[in-house]
């Protein structure tokens, strides 16, 4: 179903692409991800088409989440107990990073050749805390640099970008690169937002803007349910 939809969209896009002589055109499946109470992560579909497809064309897609500062803490053993002893604030890393490329007969490009700021694999120039921050994000499924983008027929391509439930909220940028021969890549850019909406958003705002009332509200809820349960169960048994 999704595949079909992708084909239709690609078909619709390929015509203007060919007409304008742009080597590539692309799009994304949604420009807003709504975090609701049933949210459990989602998939973003990035798709597109190249004009005059050639055998050696390569497509690379990067997705970057909003930059988030994190605390990296290192444990050392103190009197037999593992304690956080050093802490460093690491900022400037995107909270989410994803890189997918198409695979042809040749090996995949090293991530550093696709974009200069790719963190996931090239950690050689980084400090130990920065490396730890990257590997921590990798473990949470926030950093991937070896995913696959697929070629479909007739110069169409697509990639699924999995967003875990805990991916940071904010603006994400998507860049699609077409590498053709030795020329610098053609790039197209998109962006989408991950946002709490509706009830969830109201709760979050409530908790942060009116924290005292929010706390009182939680307590009132607890007292009411506790009292209700006591009354109900006394009747039942």
């Amino acid at each position: 179903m999704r595949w079909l939809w992708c084909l239709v969209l690609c078909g619709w896009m390929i015509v203007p692409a060919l007409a304008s002589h742009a080597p590539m055109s692309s799009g994304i499946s949604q420009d807003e991800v709504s975090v609701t109470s049933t949210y459990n992560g989602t998939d973003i579909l990035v798709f597109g088409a190249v004009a005059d497809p050639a055998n050696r064309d390569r497509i690379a897609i990067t997705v970057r989440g909003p930059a988030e500062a994190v605390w990296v803490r290192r444990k050392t053993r103190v009197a037999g107990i593992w304690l956080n002893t050093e802490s460093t604030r690491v900022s400037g890393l995107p909270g989410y990073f994803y890189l997918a490329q198409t695979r042809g007969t040749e090996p995949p490009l090293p991530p550093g050749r696709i974009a200069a700021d790719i963190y996931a694999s090239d950690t050689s120039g980084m400090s130990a805390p920065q490396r730890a921050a990257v590997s921590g994000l990798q473990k949470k499924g926030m950093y991937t640099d070896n995913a696959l983008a697929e070629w479909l027929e007739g110069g169409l391509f697509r990639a699924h970008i999995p967003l875990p439930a805990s991916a940071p909220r904010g603006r994400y940028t998507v860049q699609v690169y077409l590498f053709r021969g030795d020329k610098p890549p053609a790039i197209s850019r998109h962006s989408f937002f991950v946002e709490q909406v509706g009830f969830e958003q109201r709760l979050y705002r409530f908790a942060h803007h009116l924290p005292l009332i929010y706390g009182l509200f939680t307590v009132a809820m607890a007292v009411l349910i506790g009292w209700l349960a006591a009354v109900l169960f006394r009747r039942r048994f």
Partner: protein
Amino acid sequence: MFLPIAEMSVHGGVILAMGFGVGFLSGMFGIGGGFLLTPLLMFYGIPPAVAVATGTSQLTAVTMSGVLTNWKRRTVDFRLGWALVAGGAVGALGGAGLFGWLQHLGQIETVITLSYVVMLGTVGALMLIETLRTLRCKTDDPVETRGPGQHRWIHRLPLKVRFAEARLYISVIPPVLLGVFVGLLSAVLGVGGGFLLVPVMIYLLRVPTAIAIGTSLFQILFVSALTTVFQAAGNYSVDIMLALILIIGGVVGVQYGVRVGARLRAVELRLLLALLVLAVAAKLLADIIVTPADLYSVTGAS
């Protein structure tokens, strides 16, 4: 489902089961269950701040019915209760502040874990020893207590107040100090502190057992409620969705736990509880002693 404050996706059924299980145990053993709920939530991956702050709101709901029952039976000494609550409010306020500071330093997990190990290890071991001794003697004889009216240091303190239901005429200072300490524990560890309040009231203040239990529930109700408010206002760490599921599971669990508990022998109950407490302590101890797989931990900088 997605938790708005913890900002993570959890399985609603698992949380409901946790609430029910802890509620069941607290009904069965007559305990608050905070010391089980907080570590359980942490084992599941809920950030410690959210686990502690949200766990206390479940405590409020679960103790509510206990307080109502004891109120009807007139086994709450309100004057003593208010003295404890007054101390508890100060302790909880200080505790919420301490919590925020430790969180900022990145030491909150260690402090929580270590405190739990010490607290649960001690209480569990004491209970186990006492239970095994009782089992060996095959009798449930009451612990020897000195009769009221004996003069000890507690009776020499100033500001004496008459606590009618508790049949006491003592200084207001020890209950207030006890309240402060328990309030602090409540805010930092997410426990009600009944395991501490009840024995101290019985053995040190010489409060009759039924009144001690009723009054301690009264104190826990108010202090857990205050702690929830302080944590929400100061640390933004109360997750109302998580609280709702835990509370629903909890209040139902308690009712069934009470019924099962009534059918078991008191000594067997205490033995089970002691083993449970020691198991939690052992698991927590292992967490901080075993070399971690990753020496680095990454947390949000908020």
